[in-house]
């Protein structure tokens, strides 16, 4: 067996008669960025929803290989994918907790760890030293990530008050706060200007190189895809039509026909 981080085999998702994903197989590497691209309605977000447990796939398997175990993601239902398997995701339309502070957003992401430390709330009610210590650590982790995206000075402001680009970055580091093995990003560059996109690239490369986290990326912004992807999977009508490096993808006639061709 190759030691890929994620092995998706023959994944199929049907909604009634509509086949959203048709027999899709691909894999994603640890410390690599794998992009999934394709025209609108190609089934990219559906792949994410299957991976992260929001949909139950009709058929196929999705394996996540950790150091010494091989988990079938199909066996986990919604929140357990993040809790037990360590697959984090962001959303196409940002889903922060807008009326909670930036720091609180990151603390919620560390919920399970803190919940255990708070002894199902009872130890926490009495300020047990072990809980206080864990909470401090969690704040430190949050601060570490805020420093990276340069939002430390806004830590106590409502997340909903941040500018759009900062909200995107916050959502990504919030997902990183659950300490995931695989990070799934659904169009992180949508709505960003050129400068913000460049910052995003930097952040994603940092996560890939320093954190050794596998990244699965859905993106329309080709400047992002071409610049940082190690591997590109192209979908059209739920089927994989091409996979390869960014350079190969750019020159592939199938892709140009199905996807880039429609742009011009």
């Amino acid at each position: 067996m190759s030691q890929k981080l994620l092995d998706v085999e023959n994944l199929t998702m049907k909604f009634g008669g509509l086949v959203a994903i048709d027999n899709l197989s691909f894999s994603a590497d640890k410390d690599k960025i794998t992009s999934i691209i394709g025209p609108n309605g190609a089934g990219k977000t559906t792949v994410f929803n299957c991976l992260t447990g929001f949909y139950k796939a009709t058929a196929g398997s999705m394996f996540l290989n950790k150091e010494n175990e091989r988990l079938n993601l199909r066996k986990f239902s919604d929140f357990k994918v993040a809790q037990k398997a360590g697959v984090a995701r962001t959303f196409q339309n940002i889903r922060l907790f807008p009326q909670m502070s930036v720091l609180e957003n990151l603390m919620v992401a560390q919920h399970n760890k803190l919940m255990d430390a708070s002894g199902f709330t009872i130890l926490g009610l009495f300020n047990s030293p072990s809980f206080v210590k864990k909470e401090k650590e969690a704040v430190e982790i949050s601060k570490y990530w805020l420093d990276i995206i340069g939002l430390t000075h806004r830590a106590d402001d409502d997340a909903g008050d941040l500018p759009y680009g900062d909200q995107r970055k916050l959502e990504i580091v919030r997902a990183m706060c659950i300490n995931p093995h695989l990070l799934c990003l659904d169009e992180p560059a949508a709505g960003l200007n050129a400068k913000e996109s460049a910052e995003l690239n930097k952040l994603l490369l940092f996560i890939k190189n320093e954190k050794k986290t596998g990244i699965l990326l859905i993106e329309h912004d080709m400047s992002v895809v071409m610049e940082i992807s190690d591997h590109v999977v192209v979908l059209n009508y739920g089927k994989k039509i091409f996979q390869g490096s960014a350079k190969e993808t750019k020159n592939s006639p199938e892709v140009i026909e199905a996807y880039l061709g429609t742009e011009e």
Partner: protein
Amino acid sequence: MEKKFFQTSIKDSLFTGLIALALFGPIVGLRTVAKNEVLEVHPKWFIVLIIVIVCAVGRFLTNLYVYNRDQKTGIQSSIGKSISNFLDTKGYQIALTAIIFSVIFPFLPFTDRYLMDIAIMMLTYIMLGWGLNIVIGLAGLLDLGYVAFYAVGAYSYALFAIHFGWSFWICLPIAGIFAAMFGVLLGFPVLRLRGDYLAIVTLAFGEMIRILLLNWYQLTKGPDGLTGIPRPSFFGLPFKSFPDEGEQTFHTFFGVEYDPMQRIIFLYYLILVLALITNLFTIKIRRLPIGRAWEALREDEIACKSLGVNPRNTKLTAFAIGAMFGGFAGSFFATRQAFISPESFTFIESAIIVAIVVLGGMGSQTGVVLATVFLIGLIEVFRDFESYRMIAFGGAMVLIMIFRPRGILATRKPTITLEKSSSK
């Protein structure tokens, strides 16, 4: 410009007068009187005329002075602003003053039996409001059947106290646990529901409990209610004017004259302590992971799932803990009244508690207190004008919603802040 504005204002107020005529004409103007077994119509056009003029002129004046944005003399811009500002910035001071005041309240010179009774009632509602604040304010689950847990607490306290003769301090936690169990019972079927649908199911749940209490005659004595619920004792010392032979009572133990106010004052402090425990617990639990998860769930359930937060457990704990405090308040209610019947647990109670939480500002602890004092106080003030009570109640709600659309105290403080010391 000026002239045109004047014209539209006149037109608008004439139109208002017309609506008033259409509304009040038949309602107020035509009065039927039974005379010699014949129904006669006694028109009262003069009163109608007065009402119509008042409406039209009132509309004209509000047009000129309140809704006219050019002029800064509107109510909203002067008094309203300063009150709003005061409420937004001085929440903590208001809370502190309220606590000090409530501690010394029984010994103030003007405090009498009547005021004490109102204060006890208000504190019961405040405690219920704080309990429900966990469910509605923090977890964002609109629960219209909260009175069910109040009822479960009251009945389980009454039944255990009557049949087993257990003391208040043993029955209180039991009643809380029972109510919490019912909270989980309600929580399970409504896990997937949100918003309006959740409200309908919880409303039905509240009614189910009331109807159950009404019809399970063997256990609850149905509409007759439960009588002879033991009064609470001061750590084993009862409040009695004529103690039995050799029995220690509160006044013999402390060597003071017997006074019926002693029990009232004790009850007052009891509910004050219970309410403050509810408050402290909520303030504390808000800062724990579970409290933060509740608020996150209120904000966005899907995002919560993507972060591995278990929505089922989180919701159920919110229901259970909220219900538990409702149960505590219920047992206090039972021991204070010494008589309970399903009459006391109707939907209007739930509605009042929800109104308190919403008007106070969802999630705001001090807001609950202000809203309770305002609403319950208003109901009491209007006690002599029975038929106008609900009008005043509704009017007060409309006013609050106009001037403070997000509740009296709507500012939310983060549960955890980054130390600013490092950045300075």
